[in-house]
């Protein structure tokens, strides 16, 4: 008999900021398993678009020396949830870049749990959100380093740009470290576009929307830097930014 998982509530940490009503229609989210074999390399990209709610949950294991480059562009769904559980074996490398672009009353979230289980594995997460209207953009990121996983290098860089003061950005980084020889750099920042920079661009003739677009393009591109499909991802992100700014 299969267990029917009950719908989460606000008290479930991983769903603290979710749009629970929209989640109801998608529940339960069936996890998708991805296994990267020892020594293999793979690059994956996901684009969450269209207006309908979307939720995905990937359970990923990286074997010894395996490499995964995973990029996500979340731009369009009224509610978009992208959750990943990643376990890294010895010497594995995981690169994650996510951009969340929301406006109106959209709710987007990226929830990650990255666990280093073996020696000398590296992971890097870059999340960039641009939020307008009354939208909500959330990042919940837990990094776990198990006992014995020395030589870990885990990085998190999470930044959100609020286009309107009515938008909300949530960022909850978590580190659970049981090894000694670990590098775990992390940073979260929420801000607005630099007014000085905007004036400088406008003073050269760029209308306000174009000035904002230029600055935001660069900001979002950081999530896709180095990805094999960065051109397509950036083009899709640009198109969405134009729509949000208009």
């Amino acid at each position, binding site marked *: 008999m299969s267990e029917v998982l009950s719908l989460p509530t606000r008290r479930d940490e991983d769903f603290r900021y979710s749009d629970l009503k929209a989640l109801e229609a998608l529940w339960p989210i069936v996890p998708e398993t991805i296994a990267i074999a020892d020594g293999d390399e793979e690059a994956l990209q996901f684009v969450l678009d269209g207006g309908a709610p979307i939720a995905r949950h990937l359970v990923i294991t990286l074997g010894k020396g395996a490499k995964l480059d995973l990029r996500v562009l979340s731009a369009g769904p009224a509610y978009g949830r992208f959750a990943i559980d990643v376990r890294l074996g010895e010497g594995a490398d995981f690169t994650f870049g996510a951009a969340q672009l929301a406006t109106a009353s959209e709710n987007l979230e990226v929830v990650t749990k990255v666990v280093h289980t073996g020696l000398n594995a590296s992971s890097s997460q870059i999340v960039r959100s641009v939020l307008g209207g009354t939208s909500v953009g959330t990042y919940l990121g837990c990094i776990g380093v198990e006992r014995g996983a020395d030589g870990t290098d885990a990085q998190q860089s999470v930044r959100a740009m609020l286009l309107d003061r009515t938008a909300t950005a949530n960022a909850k980084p978590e580190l659970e470290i049981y090894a000694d020889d670990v590098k775990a750099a992390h940073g979260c920042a929420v801000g607005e576009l630099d007014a000085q920079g905007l*004036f400088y*661009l*406008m*003073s050269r003739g*760029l209308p306000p929307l174009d000035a904002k677009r*230029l600055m935001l*393009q660069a900001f979002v591109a950081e999530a896709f830097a180095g990805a094999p499909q960065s051109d397509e991802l950036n083009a899709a992100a640009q198109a969405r930014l134009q729509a949000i700014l208009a």
Partner: protein
Amino acid sequence: MAGHGFEGMTVNERLVEAGLLEEYELAHSCGERAKINAVLAKIGLRRDENDMNWTIEPMLTIEDLRANVADKPILKGLSLEIKAGEIHAIMGPNGAGKSTLGYTLGGRPGYEVTGGSATLCGEDLLDMEPHERAAAGLFLGFQYPVEIPGVSFVQFLREAANAQRKSRGEEPLSGGEFLKLAKEKAGLLKMDMDMLKRPVNVGFSGGEKKRAEMVQMGVLDPKLAILDETDSGLDIDALRICGEGINAIMRREDKAVLLITHYQRLLDYVKPDYVHILSAGRIVKSGGPDLALRLEEEGYEAVVAETAA
């Protein structure tokens, strides 16, 4: 008309200097009054209502300008006229309002106009948004050019140039045309094109930032350049390069420059026609280039004090 002397130069000579003689002769041959007037307007000449007399209208007219920054009055009734073909320098002690003048004319947020007016080629400057002022022919050289991480210099400059052209109903520059123009201006300012492929001003030294400002000015081809302390932070060589760049780009009969500066040294390269002293938010003294030399010798306090007497 040609042969009417004014300010020591005939209209013909001014047209030649501005590179407009061919355009003028073409308009003249069509006999279209409107076209003729349009060409002559570019060097600041306007006919009066009776269509009889010509007057030289200033390119920039500032009348009794008052402006606050953070609710504090900084400009307290500044008046100034700059005609096409002229180079003016404004000097003054710290806190006098020199940068405020530049930012107010540029339309920077936080600079509140509380009185007075400013027109550029007859258009109300203060009524326009910053990007509209640029399209109308204004260029503001920043004292501290802003770094814009992630935005490539050439991409930004090309988009800016084409945005201005679009709003003036001109054809945009193609990628090739733009690169050619940018290369030419970069060469003038002794800047490597590789530097200009980097993000705007990121990792540039002070001197490089100022030279990059001049490259932008060269590409955007404004009517009026207001250069805010362009000479600050420049070494001897960079100063000479910038000075020569300003002369090459802006010293024309249909353009004008307002140099805002502390020191005489830039004025050795860009010789001004007029020098004004700005003190406590107003222009208190105006003169020729020798006024700047006097300031260097005697200091602001002495020279300003005598205006109060």
